[in-house]
């Protein structure tokens, strides 16, 4: 069964450094998403991406964040200057986009645990 993969599984960085989290969505999917989950808290939507551009973004997704689909398979989340409060689990997800809706069934990756020191 196809699945969403994410690398690395755990990333440790110093405050102020840039990090890039990588995701490989399911190959025939059209919608891509990033979420974060701070330890012990709920999953929070960051951004959705469709047709090579941002479709929706939350207020969390400020100027320090950016997303990119650099090639036909990868989908990346860049955090330009990490802060302590960016420490969280980051999940990538993808959906078929059958109904051109961002609430189509989403398939989540295993997550990348980001630790900012």
């Amino acid at each position: 069964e196809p699945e969403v993969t994410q690398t690395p599984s755990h990333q440790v960085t110093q405050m102020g450094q840039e990090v890039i989290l990588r995701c490989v969505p399911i190959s025939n999917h059209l919608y891509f998403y990033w979420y974060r989950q701070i330890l012990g808290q709920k999953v929070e939507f960051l951004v959705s991406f469709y047709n090579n551009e941002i479709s929706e973004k939350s207020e969390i997704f400020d100027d320090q964040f950016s997303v990119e689909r650099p090639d036909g398979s990868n989908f990346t989340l860049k955090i330009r200057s990490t802060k302590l409060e960016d420490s969280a689990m980051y999940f990538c997800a993808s959906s078929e986009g059958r109904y051109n809706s961002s609430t189509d069934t989403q398939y989540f990756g295993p997550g990348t645990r980001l630790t900012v020191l």
Partner: protein
Amino acid sequence: LAKTTQPISMDSYEGQEVNITCSHNNIATNDYITWYQQFPSQGPRFIIQGYKTKVTNEVASLFIPADRKSSTLSLPRVSLSDTAVYYCLVALRGSSYKLIFGSGTRLLVRP
């Protein structure tokens, strides 16, 4: 203010039916309501999705009233492996469009 509300936790015993309700005001009119299950240190996993009335699949049922201001996930005959956190996911329309996960309901199934 657009938001979702779920019970923080629920306890059940093996073999019982469990119903978890998510209240969501200001839901987007054209979007689905989806429920996910999450185990510790894993990504959310799709359970069921619906737009209105009732939807049933091999693992759960989803009840959505006509006003779509809430939805109820029904898990028939739960087992120990159903112990997890359950989230509703909706699209809310207010000053801006946003995808919102509910606060999550931690279900504990006891033997």
